[in-house]
């Protein structure tokens, strides 16, 4: 039997545990914001707050990145996440290390039945996707957080108990140097799918577990293949079951094989067995080495509410979906970006607690939508009855010659920036605004993310306002977190050049039109004929200020 080699293990960074002042003190310290869990969502939130100048405590039970060594979990970072990383200042590093892609192909047997190019709908500076092992993203976030110097990073610090108080949360922490208690005005649970905080508080997660089984092989080989997302509904080299193939950093391919439901997970992940599968896929002459092999089954859960008093749930602690479409990690990162600016404005006294309720009102429906989308993909990939097999066979057969059926082939619908439903703070609902390249009137280049990276303010884009109106609007919003910018015209406001891409993306073409963009690059309001009073009202509405006269 052929034997297979493993690459040398990754050397991941380790950060020191520093005993915090609470240890050895009898005084209970109260912190405004405590985040528990330094995974992608907790780190993104800490980094987002730090970028806004807001201090937070971040606790993590480990002292490194990644889970179980270098086993990569998430690999695909979607455009909205990349735009967030751009604002935080790590996107260039991610792009330099990762694999940029936008093209996907789906095969049935040896035949291509479907393909897509996500670049077609993009006007962003960021690509549709970059693939990168999750531990690199966490690594870059930690280094950026340390550089920003606003976050109290506490490694080797495990939360053993939380106790809701009338005005905050009491937190018990275990460290290598002993235990201590502290309090927080607000606690953010980013401890992941098995959140002990959620369990301790007795919050129902509505969990369900799939019987579908998969086995990941992260592997390095010399065969030149395009940097595209390839999926097989029924691969001839995997006994007619599904296969995923994706390139990550360092020349490592993530190949994910669907296994029989009743498989022996220990056996199918043995190097000889996994190696035989790869040999069948790559052919006899391709040399390869394993980086990691891991069997898994997926599950899902969704909390009814992402806010419980002074405790907020983000990322996997709040929602877990099947992996098809990369909607797990990306939605955690986007949870963090949704909550970050709200916590910052509350900390700065520019918004009230009601704004924090909008985190749940926006991200819970987003998670619900992601659960529906990923569940449909999972069901296409693992039919549950003879009838479902028959229907899938029909879809795949028709897809080979009829374009309409290709739309039914579902090997995952890639992560998008979810729209938000209409709500008091979002009367028209919310839609993400892409990171458009822009130009100041004097020709200097900028982007929407660069504009948003400067402080925590909404941006008002106003098409060629009249000079007197612009002055009146500045006066009407002087105490509010708003940066008013003109698009063309001669208003006296800081002015960006009129741009057809921008106008089309935001659906505004005429002078007097106005779009309010939130700090998370979601559109909060569109005013076809803006007035200073209407702008001030739209802003107060978006910030959940009490607007009753």
């Amino acid at each position, binding site marked *: 039997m052929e034997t297979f080699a493993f690459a040398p293990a990754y050397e991941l960074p380790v950060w020191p545990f520093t005993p915090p002042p609470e240890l050895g003190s009898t005084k209970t310290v109260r912190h405004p914001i405590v985040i528990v869990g330094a995974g992608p969502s907790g780190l993104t939130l800490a980094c987002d707050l730090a970028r806004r100048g807001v201090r937070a405590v971040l606790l993590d039970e480990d002292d490194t990145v990644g889970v179980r060594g270098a086993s990569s979990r998430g690999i695909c970072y979607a455009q909205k996440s990349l735009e967030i990383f751009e604002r935080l200042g790590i996107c260039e590093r991610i792009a330099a290390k990762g694999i940029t892609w936008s093209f996907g192909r789906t095969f049935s047997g040896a035949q291509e039945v479907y393909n897509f190019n996500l670049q077609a709908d993009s006007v962003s500076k960021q690509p549709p996707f970059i693939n990168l092992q999750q531990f690199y993203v966490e690594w870059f976030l930690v280094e950026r957080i340390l550089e920003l110097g606003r976050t109290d990073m506490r490694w080797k610090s495990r939360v053993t108990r939380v106790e809701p108080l009338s005005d905050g949360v009491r937190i018990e922490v275990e460290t290598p140097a002993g235990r201590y208690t502290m309090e927080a005005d607000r606690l953010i649970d980013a401890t992941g799918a098995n959140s002990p905080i959620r369990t301790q508080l007795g919050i129902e997660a509505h969990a369900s577990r799939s019987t579908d089984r998969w086995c990941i092989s992260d592997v390095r080989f010399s065969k030149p293949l395009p940097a595209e997302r390839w999926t097989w509904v029924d691969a001839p080299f995997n006994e007619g079951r599904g296969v995923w193939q994706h390139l990550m950093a360092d020349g490592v391919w993530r190949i994910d094989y669907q296994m029989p439901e009743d498989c022996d997970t220990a056996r199918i992940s043995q190097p000889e067995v996994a190696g035989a599968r790869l040999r069948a896929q790559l052919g006899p002459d391709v040399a390869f080495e394993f980086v990691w092999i891991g069997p898994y089954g997926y599950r899902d859960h969704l909390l009814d509410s992402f806010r419980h008093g002074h405790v907020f749930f983000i990322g996997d602690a709040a929602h877990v979906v099947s992996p098809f479409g990369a909607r797990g990690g990306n939605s955690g990162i986007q949870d963090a970006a949704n909550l970050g600016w709200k916590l910052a404005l509350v900390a700065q006294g520019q918004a009230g607690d009601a704004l924090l309720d909008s985190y749940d009102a926006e991200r819970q429906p987003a998670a619900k939508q992601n659960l529906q989308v990923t569940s449909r993909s999972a069901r296409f990939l693992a039919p549950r009855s003879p*009838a479902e097999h*028959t*229907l899938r*066979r*029909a*879809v795949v*057969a*028709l897809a080979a010659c*009829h374009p*309409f*059926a290709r739309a*039914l082939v579902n090997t995952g619908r890639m992560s998008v920036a979810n729209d938000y439903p209409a709500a008091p703070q979002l009367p028209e609902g919310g839609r993400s605004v892409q990171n458009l390249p822009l130009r100041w009137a004097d020709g200097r280049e900028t982007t929407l993310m660069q504009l948003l990276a400067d402080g925590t303010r909404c941006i008002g884009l106003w098409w060629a306002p009249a000079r007197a109106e612009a002055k009146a609007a500045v006066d009407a919003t002087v105490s509010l977190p708003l940066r008013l910018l003109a698009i063309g015209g001669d208003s006296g406001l800081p002015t960006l050049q009129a741009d057809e891409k921008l106008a089309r993306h935001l659906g505004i073409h005429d002078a007097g039109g106005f779009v309010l963009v939130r700090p998370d690059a979601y559109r909060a309001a569109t005013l076809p004929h803006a007035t200073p009073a209407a702008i001030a009202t739209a802003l107060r509405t978006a910030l959940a200020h009490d607007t009753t006269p």
Partner: protein
Amino acid sequence: MITEPRIPDPDGFYAALLAAHEGLSEAQSADLNARLVLLLANQCGDQAVLLACIRAATEDPTTTRTP
């Protein structure tokens, strides 16, 4: 969902449908029907009508007949 007759030659259509199934095993017939349903669904192309048709097909007319 239209329930008034619209097929110009009902007997001819039915005969063609039977002819397509002739000589097929149960599994092959099921595959044929599934492909046919998908092709017809795309001819319709109206989400509300498709969902109404699924509902109507789910209710077995022999047990839910109204006078």
